[in-house]
């Protein structure tokens, strides 16, 4: 080329679908990224591959059966769904559960948070290509998995809660072992906190990546560590405590973990520090656990009522909305899982980043696809976002198929 004219090269816009089966994450979710060169200019999140009709099925089950059904919404945060549903039914029945049951329930929730956050840390290391640390974190996660197994009898689905309390006691001879396990976890987590902050292999990949500004996080309704990593103080444990969180927060020893970095590094630091805090909470719960019964008999028929139960799951605020009708089955149960609230903010976060950073940005909200069953549609033309519930989707689909018949008749 001999021309002296300055050439402006505009890279073509290419649309790259990641998923539904993709290398970054182990669950089905489809992300349509529009890229210019290496930059992501637009992102569209398509989820709903895992819709299983759990809410509809729950309407034909009794409350006791629903405890096990809802625990299986998500494998990682099974204790939160299980405990929060039990809590919702107790709210509806207006019964107070024994103090010891509250402590055990909270203990399981916090142990669940430790294991979920360590799991996320390993996945984050894996997504940035730091597999060594991934394997070491998961090795040490076994400590908390063994603790949960020895309390509840199952590694993944603890199923500790029942309507009116918990099903198993934490025997006194187990407490020293749990405390020893917590000591070991604390030592390891302090080390991983240093790895996250001082290890360049990880830090350089996450610092400044996936910026989610505080006002955007508030506007898009981000929850959990995603919001707290953007300096939005939302944490149900502190804002609206239930169960044994009430006496725990009254001590004033615990403070909400916040970060003002607003990037993936901020979210990582929040999660790591929160794990250390959860270890302290577990220790506090074990040391202050009162004696007494662990369950209260509740009649299977629950009076007509309408309640909303909230709980801070490892990924953010989990909401169970329950309508009871006087029988032993729920009239309606609606689950708003935390990942669902984080999709909208994530579509914003992806824009302006490199394509190579997409996996870690996707992983940074700790997505749990099993928890979500709706669709977020982001319009590339006018930057609007729309949450589409399934029934609207169905109406649209019917309309579309009417206009586009599959075969001529």
């Amino acid at each position: 080329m001999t021309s002296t004219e300055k050439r402006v090269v505009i890279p073509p816009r290419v649309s790259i679908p990641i998923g539904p089966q993709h290398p970054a994450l182990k669950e089905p979710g489809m992300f349509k990224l529009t890229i210019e060169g290496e930059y992501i200019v637009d992102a569209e999140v398509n989820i709903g591959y895992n819709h299983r009709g759990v809410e509809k099925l729950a309407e034909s089950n009794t409350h006791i059966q629903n405890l096990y059904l809802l625990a299986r919404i998500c494998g990682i945060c099974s204790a939160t769904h299980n405990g929060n549903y039990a809590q919702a039914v107790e709210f509806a029945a207006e019964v107070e559960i024994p103090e010891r049951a509250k402590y055990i329930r909270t203990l399981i929730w916090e142990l669940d948070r430790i294991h979920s956050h360590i799991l996320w840390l390993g996945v984050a290391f894996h997504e940035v290509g730091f597999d060594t640390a991934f394997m070491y974190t998961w090795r040490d996660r076994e400590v908390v998995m063994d603790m949960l197994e020895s309390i509840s009898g199952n590694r993944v689905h603890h199923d500790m809660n029942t309507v009116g309390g918990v099903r198993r006691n934490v025997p006194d001879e187990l407490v020293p072992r749990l405390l020893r396990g917590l000591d070991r976890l604390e030592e390891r987590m302090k080390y991983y906190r240093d790895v996250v902050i001082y290890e360049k292999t990880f830090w350089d990949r996450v610092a400044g990546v996936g910026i989610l500004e505080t006002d955007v996080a508030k506007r898009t309704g981000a929850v959990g560590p995603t919001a707290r990593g953007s300096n939005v103080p939302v944490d149900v444990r502190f804002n609206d405590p239930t169960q044994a969180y009430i006496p725990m927060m009254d001590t004033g020893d615990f403070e909400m973990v916040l970060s003002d970095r607003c990037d993936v590094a901020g979210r990582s630091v929040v999660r790591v520090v929160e794990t250390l805090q959860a270890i302290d909470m577990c220790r506090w719960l074990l040391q202050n656990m009162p004696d007494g019964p662990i369950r209260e008999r509740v009649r299977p028929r629950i009076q007509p009522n309408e309640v909303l139960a909230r709980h801070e799951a490892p990924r953010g605020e989990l909401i169970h909305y329950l309508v009871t009708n006087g029988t032993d089955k729920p009239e309606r149960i609606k689950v708003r899982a935390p990942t669902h609230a984080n999709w909208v903010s994530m579509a914003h976060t992806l824009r302006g980043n490199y394509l190579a950073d997409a996996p870690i940005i996707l992983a940074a909200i700790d997505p749990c696809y099993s928890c979500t069953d709706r669709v977020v549609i982001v319009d590339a033309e006018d930057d609007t976002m729309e949450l589409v519930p399934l029934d609207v989707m169905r109406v649209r689909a019917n309309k579309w198929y009417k206009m586009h018949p599959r075969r001529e008749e």
Partner: protein
Amino acid sequence: MPRLGKMERELLRGAVSKPATVVYPATKRGLNIPKGLRGRWEYAEPAKCTGCKICERVCPSGAIEMIECRPEDVKTKTGYRPICHFDRCTLCNQCVESCPRNVLRLTGEFEMAYLSREDMVIY
């Protein structure tokens, strides 16, 4: 000498320590099976069973079926006894808890791979 970063010491220690994993089918040592593990379903005490069908009603996954007592079974009061279709069982322990006479049990057995569904019906 180039440093390996924050993980240097951990990596060097890992090179000489023994593996964290268990060579499972060859050995079961180091698996740490807890006492209260929820494992294989068992019709532990047939003599106590009345055939009241509560276990069938509470089962969240429809795994328990009440069949008429066969000649080799202990005759229950109503003439029915539970069997477990173990392929459907989610090991939630609710049948054990709801049983008024402690007939059922989840044992600590965890090796539960079978080749056909017929093998998974527990009498």
